[in-house]
């Protein structure tokens, strides 16, 4: 396995490099780590993520990559994320007004999972914001990530505040080191990682290059993200790669990530919800409460901070008008097997996530609690519909078929029994399932 082949040609350090190479059409970009990840990509399968080449998997088995993360550690290149550097004397005030979660509770050296809303209280997007450690008291900077471009949306809301917002998506690379061994391995390079708390942020050096390390990730496991200048990408990769050798660490791609994040109950834009900005009707919009983020707003009663969408959110809380509740779903294994057995099929236990709506119905046998008539949900909810699942898979860790689902609030109590509609032999079958709290997989080490 030639290890670092193709290094020369693709060694151009920055993602934007492809655009700059004279004579080469800028069809796709490559991440700052591409020279290394490309050499490791045995299957040569790439998908396009925000115009970047992103590996779906690096080897023949995505499941092997998935297990590496859950049992040792994995490295994921998440450079294609949109990233904004936000600074200036009024950065706090600005973020306090545009982000829905209280940024004042996020001192330097901390990060927050947050979201931003429109005036109607619908979610525009979610992301992680890092409050970068201060090198000098006068320097106060945030790094905000998002899945889609948001610069105009933020810039339009600056008003008279003294804030600088730079999009740095192409100028930085991000590596996620995730899994039970991540702490020990990263601490070899950045000793502060050893004691970095969940959602803590620290500055460090890897291979002489300045890096920011945050204890964040999209796997629901113990894990870290390393933020580097694009030009330092390969240096940092090489140091990290050397440090993890012999520890069962594997690079992992989007396919494994998708499995991990479903188990972890982490929602994905475009899969489990859509941005309110581009929705044509409210059925495609979600409030943060409907997405299960009510915990972000425990402080509203005590705090009068003003932010976009606050009034609508308060009205939703007071009127209990949420149309849905975000929940996990665990399928009844016996019922699942039976449906397939009766059709003469081998019950598939496929870990490949199925993204898309699958209908949930009330359990006619009576789960108790639920109003028999149904129809309490939002507009267009069919009689008897209990909700819908958006991400469905067989979880090797949990040994069950699971899903991320939206439940009618009256059917959202954990333990409530519902029916999930699946297609078996080209017709619909209903399989018993029960509602559970998210995340479905939640190891202690994640926050410990």
């Amino acid at each position, binding site marked *: *396995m030639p290890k670092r082949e193709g290094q020369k040609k693709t060694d151009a350090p920055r993602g934007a490099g492809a655009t700059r190479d004279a004579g080469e059409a800028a069809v796709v970009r490559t991440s700052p780590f591409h020279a290394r990840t490309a050499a490791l990509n045995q299957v040569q399968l790439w998908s396009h993520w925000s115009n970047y080449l992103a590996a779906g998997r690096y080897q023949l*088995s995505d*499941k*092997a990559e998935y297990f590496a993360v859950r*049992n*040792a550690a994995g490295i994921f290149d998440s450079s294609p994320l949109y990233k904004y550097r936000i600074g200036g004397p009024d950065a706090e005030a600005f973020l306090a007004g545009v982000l829905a979660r209280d940024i004042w509770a996020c001192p330097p050296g901390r990060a927050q999972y947050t979201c931003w809303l429109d005036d109607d209280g619908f979610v525009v997007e979610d992301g992680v914001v890092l409050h970068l450690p201060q090198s000098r008291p006068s320097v106060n900077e945030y790094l905000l990530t998002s899945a889609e471009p948001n610069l105009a949306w933020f810039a339009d809301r600056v008003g008279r505040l003294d804030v600088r917002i730079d999009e740095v998506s192409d100028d930085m690379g991000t590596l996620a080191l995730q899994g039970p061994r991540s702490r020990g391995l990263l601490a070899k390079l950045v000793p502060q990682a050893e004691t970095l708390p969940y959602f803590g942020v620290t500055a460090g050096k890897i291979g002489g290059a300045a890096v920011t390390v945050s204890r964040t990730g999209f796997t629901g496991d113990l894990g870290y993200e390393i933020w580097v200048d694009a030009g330092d990408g390969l240096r940092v990769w090489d140091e990290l790669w050397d440090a993890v050798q012999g520890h069962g660490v594997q690079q992992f791609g989007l396919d494994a990530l998708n499995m991990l994040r479903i188990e972890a109950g982490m929602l994905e834009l475009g899969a489990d919800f859509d941005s309110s900005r581009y929705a044509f009707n409210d059925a495609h919009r979600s409030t943060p409460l409907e997405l299960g983020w009510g915990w972000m707003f425990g402080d509203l009663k005590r705090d009068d901070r003003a932010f976009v969408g606050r009034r609508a959110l308060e009205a939703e809380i007071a009127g209990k008008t949420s149309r849905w509740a975000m929940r996990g779903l665990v399928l009844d294994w016996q019922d699942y097997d039976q449906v397939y057995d009766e059709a003469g099929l*081998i019950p598939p236990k496929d870990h490949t996530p199925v993204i898309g709506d699958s209908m949930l119905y009330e359990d006619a046998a009576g789960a108790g609690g639920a109003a028999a008539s149904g129809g309490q949900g939002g507009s267009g909810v069919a009689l008897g519909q209990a909700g819908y699942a958006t991400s469905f898979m067989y979880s*090797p860790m949990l*040994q069950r078929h699971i899903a991320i689902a939206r439940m009618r609030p009256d059917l959202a109590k954990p333990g409530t029994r519902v029916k999930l509609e699946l297609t078996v032999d080209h017709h619909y079958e209903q399989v018993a399932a029960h509602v559970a709290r998210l995340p479905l997989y939640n190891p202690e080490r994640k926050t410990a």
Partner: protein
Amino acid sequence: MSTKKTPAKAAKKRGAPASTSLASAKASRAERTYDAIVVGGGHNGLVNGAYLAKAGLRTLILERRHLVGGAAITEELRPGFWFTTFSYALSLLRPQIVQDLELVKHGFMPLLMSSTFAPMENGDYLWLTQDHGQNLKEIARHSKRDADAYEQYGHDLSKVVQALKPLFDQAPPDLFSDDPEELLALTQLGRRFRSLDKRTLHNAVRLLTGSAADFLDDYFESEILKGYLASSSIIGTKVGPRSQGSGLVLLFHAMGEHDGEFGAWSFHKGGNGGFTQVLARAAQAFGAEIRLESPVAAVITKNGRATGVALTDGTEFYADTVVSALDPRHTFLELVDPRELPDDLVETVQRYRFQGTSSKVNFALDGLPRFPALPGREDVFRGFTNIGPSIDYLERAFDEGKYGWYSSRPYIDGAIQSTIDPDMAPPGRHVMSCFIQYTPYKLRESDWDAEQENLGDTVQRTLESFFPGFGDLVLQREVVTPLHIERTVGLSEGNIFAGEFFAPQMFFFRPAPGWSQYRTPIDGYYQCGSGTHPGGCVMGAPGKLAAERILKDRGKGRG
């Protein structure tokens, strides 16, 4: 009132010291009384005890050794190096058990063995992975015809497995009973076979009675592919791939699954010992009590009923349900007095074939082996390494075994488990488990105490011939012979399945005609080890099905 007649004084009259110890003896007798006692903390004993405890029985599991697991243990033989001393991979475990006993909660984690690497004697290899398309092309390298046949073979075998799988999850009907329930079960069994298509039924019979070589010859021409597929037809059994009966062993090993994929094997986190630790935690969580270093000498019986057990040190425990999780020889000939049993049962058990023929050689390695045709390639070791490059190779290995000696070029099922689970070895170092055949329990004109290290050398030499430089990597070696298995685990003659897999010892007849339903002739005395249906392997079915029988009997006021 007079204070003279205090109870204490009254007691003193009768001899106080004796009385207090009598009282404490009484208390401790109550403490030593359970609803059910399971003898043997192998995986089947643990499964059985967990189900009984889950059903609310006060359950005691007694294990002779300092750790539970029996043949399924993992031991740190060298600091940082964890060896799967005996059993090393997982597939047949009944998925229901994972759910019923909530094993996920206690750490159940079957890691993926993502490939099989089968080196050939001419330096070439067959490497099968998780990618179906790649596998077909890889097979086509050896035979284009076989790539197509492989699809058909996989489909045909899956159909047979699908048809027979339910038999693993129920007790065999009693052929010899007039009980309407049993007759009904027999009829249902007949109906199941009647409902199969002709091809599947015929394939099933060919596998259950014929040889693996014959079956494979009908599909394939490539020696390496046949050698690899035939390898599972000899595991744990004194048959060669050309022996009648090897088909059954092949089929048995295809009956397992990994996440729904038939015939796929996984490596449990921490080895099968990691798995039995999970089981022990589950059993305890349901309330079962596990007592280590408690060898049972005998089952106590009274008027044809089991009433408890006595340890070798004389300690007694009482219960009206006693379950032996040991093999049939121990269950019927040692734990109870055979004179209490019907002659025909005793005779059958005496004739019951063990003749262990498998060994293990486990290595601590300084690095990964090198295969000359694939220099620097490490991912080929993320799974099984199968040294059985042709049916001839396996059959020749068997020839030597037949005549009472171990194979000079043995069959080896290798697995470098630290590539899958890095917690098994220090960084950069590895553990390699090698399952070896043939190594007959009874050696001609020698014994295993004398031959143990020679076997280790033979295995190492064989590996060296495929992976030059292998010997230089060896930091430590553990040789586990059939005698060692018998002495350590208690499996008679070192038979890994607690009795060979062949038709007269399966299903209706496991372990003996008329005693395939986990009962014994002694009321309240049950059997749940691998010597009962469906048989050996880390599958838990005997433990589970026996628990169902026990609970049913208790419900009826029997047992």
